[in-house]
């Protein structure tokens, strides 16, 4: 009997060499925005030129998104809300806004004029323009929220694939650690971690990873357990591929669907968590504008009907962003059930 040659699969390099336009556009939007928020102060006054390529990329990404989601009206509404804030985040330095950190006229109510300046949304107790603070405030929430969710996904998916595919001892150990972390109420975990590390954006990423990765790991593990008995996985095993190759190129692309829906929901949770933690004094720090900080600062001074706009503006802003993520998740789930 002749020995039949086992056909070799596409190499890892082949699989990586065709980047999709969505990914390119996302990176074009995301890398400058993240760099601007994280290192803008170190770069200096010219930092805003970083954001120039991000503005068209955001618009193009939105058009692509609407075309992909057009079957579901809910998803398009959600996408529009999210991209409205993304566009605000990347174009904030170019918009005709006042300096968000400069005190101008304290306690100016919305639609009022003070000293020749018109305030659409009024000013806060220090006299900083609310409209400008609201728009600048979305930058940090978006950057840290999405970064934290992505890191949590990388960690969670990695452990999920390992424990689902390799099983055995790996599974026992990883599952036990995940169970330990999952049996803490989320807020307790956040408070303990951030209190230990100190409040900052990077530490929020760490805290969110600890809180979300176990749940993500469980989802990915379940999916991997299901998928690893498929024929294409056996084929790859027969070819003698490395387990790492199988996990990344055979399993990971095929667990993508359910994960994307969950990621949208989790982006919403992370946004809630960041805003809440910042309100509690454990998250982002002043003076840069942030929705949670705006609530924290005004909650002490603005408990009057006349000044309630100081609380309402950030509260509505954060709700609209979270609504956007949730509607997107809803629409995506609906679409995935349809086919």
């Amino acid at each position, binding site marked *: 009997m002749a020995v039949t040659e086992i056909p070799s699969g596409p190499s890892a390099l082949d699989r990586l060499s065709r980047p999709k336009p969505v990914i390119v556009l996302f990176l074009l939007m995301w890398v400058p925005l993240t760099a601007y928020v994280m290192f803008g102060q170190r770069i200096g006054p010219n930092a805003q030129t970083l954001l120039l390529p991000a503005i068209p990329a955001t618009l193009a990404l939105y058009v692509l998104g609407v075309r992909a989601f057009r079957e579901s009206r809910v998803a398009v509404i959600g996408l529009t809300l999210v991209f409205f804030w993304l566009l605000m985040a990347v174009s904030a330095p170019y918009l005709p806004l006042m300096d968000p950190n400069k005190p101008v006229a304290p306690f100016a109510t919305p639609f009022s004029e003070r000293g020749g300046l018109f305030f659409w949304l009024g000013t806060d107790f220090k006299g900083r323009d609310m409209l400008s603070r609201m728009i600048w405030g979305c930058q940090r929430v978006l950057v840290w929220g999405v970064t934290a969710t992505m890191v949590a996904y990388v960690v969670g998916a990695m452990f999920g694939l390992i424990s689902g595919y390799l099983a055995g001892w790996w599974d026992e150990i990883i599952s036990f650690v995940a169970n330990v972390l999952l049996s*803490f*109420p*989320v*807020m307790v975990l956040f408070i303990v971690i951030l209190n230990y590390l100190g409040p900052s954006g990077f530490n929020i990423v760490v805290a969110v990873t600890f809180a979300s990765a176990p749940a993500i790991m469980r989802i990915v593990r379940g999916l991997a357990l299901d998928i690893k008995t498929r024929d294409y996985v056996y084929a790859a095993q027969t070819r003698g591929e490395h387990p790492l190759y199988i996990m990344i190129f055979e399993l990971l692309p095929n667990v993508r669907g359910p994960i994307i829906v969950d990621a949208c929901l989790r982006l919403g949770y992370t946004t809630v968590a960041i805003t809440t933690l910042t309100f509690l004094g454990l998250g982002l720090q002043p003076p840069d504008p942030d929705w949670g900080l705006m609530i924290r600062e005004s*909650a002490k001074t603005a408990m009057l009907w006349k000044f309630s706009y100081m609380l309402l503006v950030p509260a509505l802003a*954060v709700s609209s962003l*979270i*609504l956007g993520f949730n509607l997107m998740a809803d629409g995506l789930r609906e679409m995935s059930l349809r086919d």
Partner: protein
Amino acid sequence: MLKLILRRLVQMVLIMAVSSLLLFAIFDTPEFKKRLAVQELGGFAVSALTEESYKSWLAARGLDVPFYQRYANWVGNILSGDLGFSYEKNRPVGPLLADRLANTGILAFFVFALMIPLSLILGILAGMKEGSLQDRSISFISVLTTSIPEIASAILLTVIFALGLGWLPVKSAMIGGFSFRELILPVLTLVIYDFGYVARMTRASMAEVMTSQYIRTAILKGLPYRRVVMRHALRNALIAPFTLIVLQLNWLLSGVVVVEVFFEYDGFGKLLLEAALFPDVEVVQACTLVAVAVAVLSQIISDIGYTFLNPRIRFA
């Protein structure tokens, strides 16, 4: 079944031991000791303190002993029922925690009393006729309310009902004793955030049951629709929501932190946050133990309930 419960309880004790040891190690770092000193003596006094007198302060507080020794002592105390002492509030942790837990318990009671009927009724109404206008509007409302985080709904409710209309008090500190009016806003805030999630899960479970064979048979043999829903569908449709509602207990312990801080309600969440910021180690420890116990116990209850309600499922 008994074996499963025992395994879970052993796991709970193990998790408690691991987490409390970790917490002890965390709060043993020099920075935390320094922070405690600053809280007690004042920042200026600490900076003026000599190395010697700082050491004697540590010794007086019992903080100079290695943490594993303190941990062993603490475990011994816990087992004999002594939860430790709060530096910040200057009273034993046991009664303090009991007080605050009772307050949070009152809050939780009203949240559940309101949330369970509301979410179940809405979920059943939506799931009965999948895709109808009724379903679409209920689903939209539940997505909308779950999208408003507690901090935002707390603000909206306060601005409308306390600042605008003046019907309810702004804060719920309960200075003049227990007052039901002060409880309304915190309860509503938590209910608004949570009911949408449970309603959606109830809807999904109901919708699944409504497409099953026995419901079709019941409808085809001419039973009144009301009767089909009440007698046939609900029994199976409510199993999943029941377990979910029990698990909401765990969520509530996280959710109350921000609500209690915003409304200045003296409960478990506010105690935990204040203790963590102070840093009041033994209070944080006790709170964590309670939180882990609630989490694991609610899981066990939900598992038992699930088995009890659904005879098809039997655990090994």
